[in-house]
């Protein structure tokens, strides 16, 4: 199928920016990038991409963005409850020929059952886990539209990595800070898929009709474990960092104690009021500006330096936090995972196959990490 123009939502994100690169440089298809925040549009600006300003909350923006397009790749993940409804309404007006919704394996929840390994037996539901529930809500909206005639395909990528991957950046930053941690020795299953393979699956979903109406998992050929995933990138730092291990129970128990309480909320408000960036924000309001400046000046006049330092709160005086830090709740959900997803349906319906195995994907990612100075000495920006 040929298209006059493809609208890409979420075009400035990790997958979206790479998709735009491949649309421009490899697939050579005309496209328009929907941009919510232009500060994030640097990667696609290199391509001379056509950019349409747009907010998924704003039906008029979406109508203008979809106008003249006959296909949509929906990658944006909005917190707006009506984001998908707004986009679908614009698509209906424009009578688009193909809608590729890029969802996530998160729709199977944090602890999917064995039936989820294959799409035909998998069910999606509610899990009381915010990210999964939001992805499910979006996917259900799209699925309803497909049931009502939208020529759509839903893709569910697994753990997508590659250059600019937030997962990879986080591992490398932690490693540079000397904080490399594993959960249960990294035994959890990591369904890693290289970002280019996901883009190729999107391209296949635009080209092939056989998957119309279906939801398809996009995964690499061989799952690895989280130990291999984390340490492959952490060990790119020289000298190799120390590794600390936490049990999932230990990590969960830690975060259980950190759940918000009245006391912790109060502490958070106090911390916010003391933070200089919040004060800077407040100072942009003239009424607050003079009040804040007067208070600071007065305090300096009557209090000793020690007392002012004490008022700045414990955050200002605390020495470096003891390492290692406990893996955050997001990592616990991702890495305490036991299921390997099949990619057979994608292979058969999309005539697609992943081409970049983990070793090759990690190597390509390393070239980008080196280029962007992230593998250099521990102080930010020291590379020259």
């Amino acid at each position, binding site marked *: 199928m040929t298209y006059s123009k493809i609208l890409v939502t979420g075009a400035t994100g990790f997958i979206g920016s790479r998709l735009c*690169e491949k649309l*421009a440089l490899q697939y050579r298809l005309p496209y328009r990038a929907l941009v919510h925040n232009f500060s994030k549009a*640097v990667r*696609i600006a*290199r391509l001379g991409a056509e950019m349409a300003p747009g907010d998924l909350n704003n039906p008029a923006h979406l109508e203008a963005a979809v106008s003249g397009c006959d296909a949509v790749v929906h990658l944006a993940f909005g917190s707006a409850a009506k984001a998908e409804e707004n986009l679908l309404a614009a698509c209906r007006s424009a009578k688009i020929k193909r809608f590729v919704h890029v969802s996530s394996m998160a729709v199977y929840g944090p602890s999917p059952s064995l039936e989820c390994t294959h799409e035909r037996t998998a069910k999606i539901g509610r899990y009381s886990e915010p990210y999964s529930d939001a992805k499910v809500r979006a996917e259900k909206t799209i699925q309803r539209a497909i049931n009502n005639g939208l020529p759509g395909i839903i893709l569910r990528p697994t753990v997508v990595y590659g250059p600019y991957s937030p997962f990879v950046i986080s591992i490398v930053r932690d490693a540079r800070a000397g904080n490399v941690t594993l959960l249960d020795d990294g035994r959890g299953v990591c369904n890693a898929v290289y970002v280019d*393979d996901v883009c190729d699956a999107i391209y296949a979903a635009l080209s092939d009709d056989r998957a119309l109406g279906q939801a398809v998992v996009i995964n690499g050929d061989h799952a690895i474990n989280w130990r291999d995933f984390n340490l492959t990138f952490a060990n790119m730092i020289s000298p190799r960092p120390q590794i600390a291990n936490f049990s999932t129970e230990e990590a969960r128990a830690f975060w259980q104690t950190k759940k918000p309480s009245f006391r912790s909320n109060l502490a958070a408000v106090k911390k916010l009021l003391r933070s200089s960036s919040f004060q800077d924000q407040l100072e942009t309001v003239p009424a607050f500006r003079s009040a804040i400046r007067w208070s600071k000046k007065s305090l300096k006049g009557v209090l000793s330096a020690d007392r002012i330092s004490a008022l700045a709160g414990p955050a200002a005086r605390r020495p470096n936090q003891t390492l290692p830090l406990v893996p955050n709740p997001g990592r616990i959900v991702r890495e305490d995972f036991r299921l390997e997803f099949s990619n057979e349906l994608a292979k058969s319906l999309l005539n697609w196959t992943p081409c970049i195995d983990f070793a*090759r994907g990690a190597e390509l990612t390393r070239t980008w990490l080196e280029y962007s100075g992230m593998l250099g000495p521990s102080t930010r*920006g020291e590379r020259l």
Partner: protein
Amino acid sequence: MTTTPIRLGIVGCGAVTRISHLRALAALPEYEVRYLCDKNLEVARAANREFGLNAKVTTDFNDMSGEIDAAIVCAWPSHHFPITMGLLKMGVDVLCEKPITTTSSDAIELAEAATRSQRIVAVGQWCRCLKISWILRRLLSLEFVGQIQAVTAEFGDELSWPMATGAYFDRKQTGGGVMFDAGIHVLDLIVWMFGELHQITYRDDSFGGMEANGILSGVIKSGDREIPCRVAASWTHALFNGVRIVGTEGEIHLRFANRDYITVVKQVAGEPMVLRIGEEGCDMPFRSGSPQQALLEDFAFAVGSRRAPVTAVDSAILPLKILEMAYTLRRPLEQPWVTSWGNQP
């Protein structure tokens, strides 16, 4: 020096004006902001409110005629030339944001117009207004680390500048990508310290759009010696953010993050000794430690005394010429993760 405040107009009330100039002006009694001009009147009004000013607002800078002595121009670079020319015709001194114009021929025309009209045109090249830049110049003149072997200047970080539209990425509006936006700062600093760059080569990561990373290499001539020089800028990741000079007897590091001192690593009796050198003894034409304030302070002094500002328009022409030359010599920056296709659909 003027005894009464300079009546100032500002053309363009976007992010640079609000984040940089109006904040700096709040601490400078030399100025009185009389007029705020923006193509969107509401933006001008918002700036007025935000900074508690009582300035007149307009969408046409010609309205300011006769009511201001000097103006700051913070419009898109493609508008710098016509606006600054218009202001010179009004008899107004101008501090124009960098890059002064989008072409060196326009910059030359502006410099000539400034001379003809006996007006001052300064450029917002704030790196020259850092105290550490003046310290560095002095150390170089003293051959503090011996003969210079290599010079590197880098400026970059993940772009986070607030922007309401995609005009930042429109070459017609801005003249270029990161090299025109951030690279021009460090290139200007190098030219200010060392003069012309020769044997220029240039690579960037553009694929038909705006470059987000650029590396310009060249040679500084010092007597019969050729010193390699590299200037890099990035919108995607953090760089050194300063200048590094490698000499036969040590290294000098100027970091924009450390505005009070320069670090020198010098070999003393075969051992590296790290020195931090502060401002004392440097003959600078401004007091302020904030480069934005120093820039405005220098401009005010130039307006009052009619002497050339540190960032006079004629001194901003050469960096533009070098950048223009670099763009014509462009080669692609190697990015294997972009162009290695796993397959060919």
